[in-house]
């Protein structure tokens, strides 16, 4: 509403506002109007009823002041005009203007204009405005007339103009340059001149960076135009259709002719010549320095010890006890199966006590002695049982055919088993611990259980005759290696068959016997021919016993008996263990499965042992490089070095065994192990009594290392198969000691207790790759399998050469010691001789006393004379003084 806007502007200029217009100021309204609520009663009274008297078109109503005052008096506080009572009283004029505010712009439906001027303005100007607007705005401003020139008001712009304008700061200088007239038109020669040659021909003002100079560009006028970049691209596809195509190539080669031509050419020759020299350099380099040596890897072997936690203890891997059979029995020998991993055979026998030995035969019938085959996959049931005629003290697998086993019994018999029939079953256990499948598993569980539960028992297939064999218990049995065999005279000869055919046994009955599993050579004697036939028929042919060794059964005889007479006394040594130089058995620790498998294949090709015949000594070539000497450990603790070659006794023409060359009494108890080192062929470990000793073959003065007496008896010893300086000693109290000669030589580097009873046998084994086991058996019949930790199984850098050096040093020491001993002995002898001589010499006669005195006097006189002469010479004595007498 225009009218409502007006009072606002006037209100600005004239600031006399009523204080009761406080509420209107709050609302933001101009000061001179006051919103008012008029009730309908009031509206009737003043004739300003909404929509009847007062409408939008005519919103005014003039009210007389007196009437308002009268109303206020009559109604006092209730009057609608009460809030502006004071204003109304002050109102100068007579009439007040009441405006109807239909749109509530001021907050109420009426408002009262409070000043005369505004009343006038509201009433009048709208009238005039209404009239004027129709006529246009030209009436607003006064009629247009040309603007008069008014004096220019400077606003500061002429300063800028002055700044911009360019004026001469000084009057312009005028120069006139002229040349001499005669020089005009003269011929001129122009030459080039380098401006840089002489400095004065030019001057330059180089631009430089003036630090003080700064002009900032205030404004730039540039034009910008945005244009889309335009590119034109085109593509064209070539339509190809798929086609079948193939290509075949072969290497380009020259024909022979072409090759010849090229080879003959000059070019080629030159090339070769020039190039060869380079190669020679390279080849020399290679020879000087081993290119392929991997330093990094070599370093690793040493460092392995330092990394992390070091496991040095032998970890228990598995242990086997059989409750039925091994009650109150002890294990006498352990052997790992040479080809099948995880299979181990154990011979069990009665615990030997003195009464037991005598009454041994009584117990035999109750519990037949057995050899157990244990497999890692089945710790409760043995895989196979071998029946023995008597307690077996020692047995061995045949290296060339692991199905043949030879054993030596308590009663002096040698026993042979053939387990070829059960080879499959044993092979099935090759899939070792963890895998349940074996070749023999049936689909039906019922059958499977029965077969698996019943451990087959294999009876021995051949046994030597009691009268032919040893008279005492056989304590050691070994197969002869397959590369040679022994003839009747004890000479090692070539073994054509390349399978192991001969066995050596020893017993405390003072002899070492050599047995051959083949029939002796067929001689012309008809008796010997018939004998085998005769003895065959009455023999009970048990169905489950293979016929492999039928020819030997009960008639087996050793072909060589080596007796061991003692030097000088006429008594004999009673051997318990022996060790041959070229014996393969000591070295067989699993690494050589390949060679034995090959042998197995060869033998599976069907060697019928019965058909083998011992060949005549003359046909076979004797082998020179095989030593026939061997070490024996005896019951009295002696170590004997002897030869098994038989000598021909000149008197009787019979073959007799040679006398042992050396004998050493070193141990204080019976010797229970004689073992060769797998790394050094001439180092032997003997264990007996409370000590152990290491010998070197060839050094006949004594053991190169002899340990100190330990508090407990040493019962068994064995070398480690992978570390040259390590061996294991078993003790009486169930301890297994690990000795590392490079670490400590005065005591064991490690001791571990395995059981409460004494250790009876230790055998290590390597299962490739890199799993080393130690089989340890104890007196109570339990077999423990231990795993050898990395620190004990991997050799340190250069361990073998270090060990070799160590042994050499020990040998030197021994030799030195001996020399010293001899020297001392000689010295002693010499000293004694001297003393003797002294005593023997005649005594010098005693001088008489007077003679002695006279002599002394003479001496004294000569001394005085000498003194005088010296003093005279020195000038201390004058001639006048009489000489003192």
């Amino acid at each position: 509403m225009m009218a409502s806007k007006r009072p606002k502007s006037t209100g600005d200029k004239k600031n006399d506002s009523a204080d009761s217009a406080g509420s209107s100021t709050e609302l933001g309204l101009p000061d001179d109007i006051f919103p008012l609520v008029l009730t309908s009663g009031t509206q009737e009274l003043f004739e300003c009823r909404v929509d009847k008297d007062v409408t939008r078109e005519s919103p005014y109503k003039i009210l007389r002041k007196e009437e308002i005052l009268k109303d206020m008096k009559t109604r006092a506080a209730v009057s609608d005009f009460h809030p502006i009572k004071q204003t109304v009283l002050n109102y100068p004029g007579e009439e007040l203007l009441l405006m109807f505010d239909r749109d509530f712009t001021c907050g109420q439906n009426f408002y009262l204009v409070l000043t005369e001027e505004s009343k006038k303005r509201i009433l009048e100007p709208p009238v005039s405005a209404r009239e004027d607007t129709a006529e246009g705005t030209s009436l607003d401003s006064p009629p247009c007339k040309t603007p008069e020139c008014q004096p220019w008001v400077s606003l500061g712009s002429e300063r800028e103009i002055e700044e911009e304008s360019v004026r001469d700061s000084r009057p312009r200088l005028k120069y006139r340059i002229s040349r001499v007239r005669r020089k005009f038109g003269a011929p001129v020669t122009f030459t080039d001149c380098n401006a840089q040659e002489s400095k004065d021909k030019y001057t330059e003002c180089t631009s430089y960076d003036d630090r003080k100079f700064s002009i900032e560009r205030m404004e730039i006028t540039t034009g910008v135009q945005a244009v889309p970049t335009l590119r034109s691209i085109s593509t064209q596809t070539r339509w190809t259709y798929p086609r079948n195509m193939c290509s075949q190539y072969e290497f380009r080669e020259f024909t022979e002719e072409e090759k010849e031509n090229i080879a003959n050419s000059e070019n080629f020759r030159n090339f070769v010549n020039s190039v060869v020299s380079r190669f020679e350099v390279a080849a020399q380099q290679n020879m000087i320095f081993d290119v392929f040596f991997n330093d990094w890897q070599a370093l690793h072997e040493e460092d392995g010890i330092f990394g992390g936690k070091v496991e040095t203890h032998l970890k228990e891997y598995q242990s086997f006890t059989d409750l039925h059979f091994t009650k109150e029995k002890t294990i006498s020998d352990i052997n790992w199966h040479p080809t099948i991993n995880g299979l181990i055979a154990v011979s069990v026998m009665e615990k030997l006590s003195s009464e037991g030995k005598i009454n041994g035969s009584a117990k035999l019938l109750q519990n037949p002695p057995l050899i157990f085959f244990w497999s890692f996959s089945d710790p409760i049931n043995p895989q196979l049982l071998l029946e023995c005629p008597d307690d077996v003290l020692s047995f061995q697998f045949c290296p060339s055919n692991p199905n043949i086993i030879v054993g030596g019994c308590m009663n002096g018999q040698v026993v042979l088993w053939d387990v070829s029939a059960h080879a499959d079953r044993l092979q099935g256990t090759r899939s070792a611990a963890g895998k349940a499948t074996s070749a023999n598993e049936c689909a039906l569980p019922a059958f499977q259980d029965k077969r698996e539960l019943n451990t087959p028992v294999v009876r021995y297939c051949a046994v030597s005759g009691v009268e032919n064999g040893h008279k005492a218990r056989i304590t050691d049995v070994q197969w002869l290696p397959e590369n040679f065999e022994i003839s009747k005279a004890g000479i090692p000869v070539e073994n054509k068959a390349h399978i192991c055919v001969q066995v050596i046994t020893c017993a405390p009955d003072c002899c070492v016997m050599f047995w051959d599993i083949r029939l002796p050579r067929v001689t012309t004697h008809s008796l010997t021919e018939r004998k085998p036939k005769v003895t065959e028929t009455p023999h009970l042919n048990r169905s489950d016993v293979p016929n492999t060794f039928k020819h030997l059964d009960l008639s087996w005889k050793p072909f060589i008996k080596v007796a061991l007479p003692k030097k000088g006394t006429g008594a004999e040594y009673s051997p318990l263990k022996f060790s041959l130089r070229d014996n393969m058995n000591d070295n067989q620790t699993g690494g050589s499965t390949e060679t034995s498998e090959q042998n197995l294949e060869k033998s599976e090709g069907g060697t019928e042992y019965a058909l083998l015949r011992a060949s005549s000594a003359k046909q076979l070539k004797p082998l020179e490089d095989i030593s026939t000497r061997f070490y024996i450990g005896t019951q009295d603790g002696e170590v004997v070095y002897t030869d098994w070659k038989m000598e021909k006794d000149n008197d009787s023409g019979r073959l007799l065994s040679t006398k042992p060359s050396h004998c050493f009494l070193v141990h204080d108890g019976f010797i229970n192990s004689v073992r060769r080192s797998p790394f050094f062929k001439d180092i032997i470990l003997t264990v007996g009594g409370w000590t152990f000793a290491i010998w070197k073959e060839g050094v006949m003065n004594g053991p190169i290392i002899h340990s100190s007496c330990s508090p407990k008896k040493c019962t068994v010893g064995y070398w480690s198969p992978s570390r040259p300086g390590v061996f294991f000693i078993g003790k009486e109290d169930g301890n297994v000691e690990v000795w590392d000669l490079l670490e400590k030589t005065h005591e064991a580097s490690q001791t571990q207790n395995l059981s409460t009873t004494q250790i009876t046998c230790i055998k290590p084994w390597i299962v490739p790759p890199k799993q080393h086991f130690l089989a340890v058996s104890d007196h109570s019949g339990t077999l423990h399998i231990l795993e050898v930790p990395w620190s004990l199984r991997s050799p340190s850098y250069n361990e073998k050469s270090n060990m070799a050096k160590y042994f050499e040093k020990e040998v030197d020491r021994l030799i030195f010691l001996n020399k010293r001993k001899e020297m001392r002995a000689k010295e002693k002898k010499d000293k004694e001789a001297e003393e003797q001589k002294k005593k023997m010499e005649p005594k010098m006669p005693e001088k008489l006393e007077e003679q002695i005195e006279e002599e002394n006097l003479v001496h004294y006189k000569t001394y005085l004379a000498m003194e005088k002469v010296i003093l005279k010479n020195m000038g201390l004595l004058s001639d006048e003084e009489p000489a003192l007498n």
Partner: protein
Amino acid sequence: MAEVEETLKRIQTQKGVQGIIIVTAEGIPIRSTLDNASTVQYAGLIQQLVMKARVTVREMDPQNDLTFLRIRSKKNEIMIAPDKDYFLIIL
């Protein structure tokens, strides 16, 4: 001709030499002491390698050229002497 043979024989008898192959620049073997299949295989593979090596050296410095290439592996070593027209490969 004979001296060439002699020289080659001399190299062959040195310690550690397993075989010799002489190849043209294109990779066709002229002479070899190994069996045909290996010869051809070696020739093809090594020719590419030598080309690559030569380009590498030349690119770095155009005045330079490859004189000798030695490849050392875990098990053996291959020595190659390139020339203008031929290579000599020694195993």
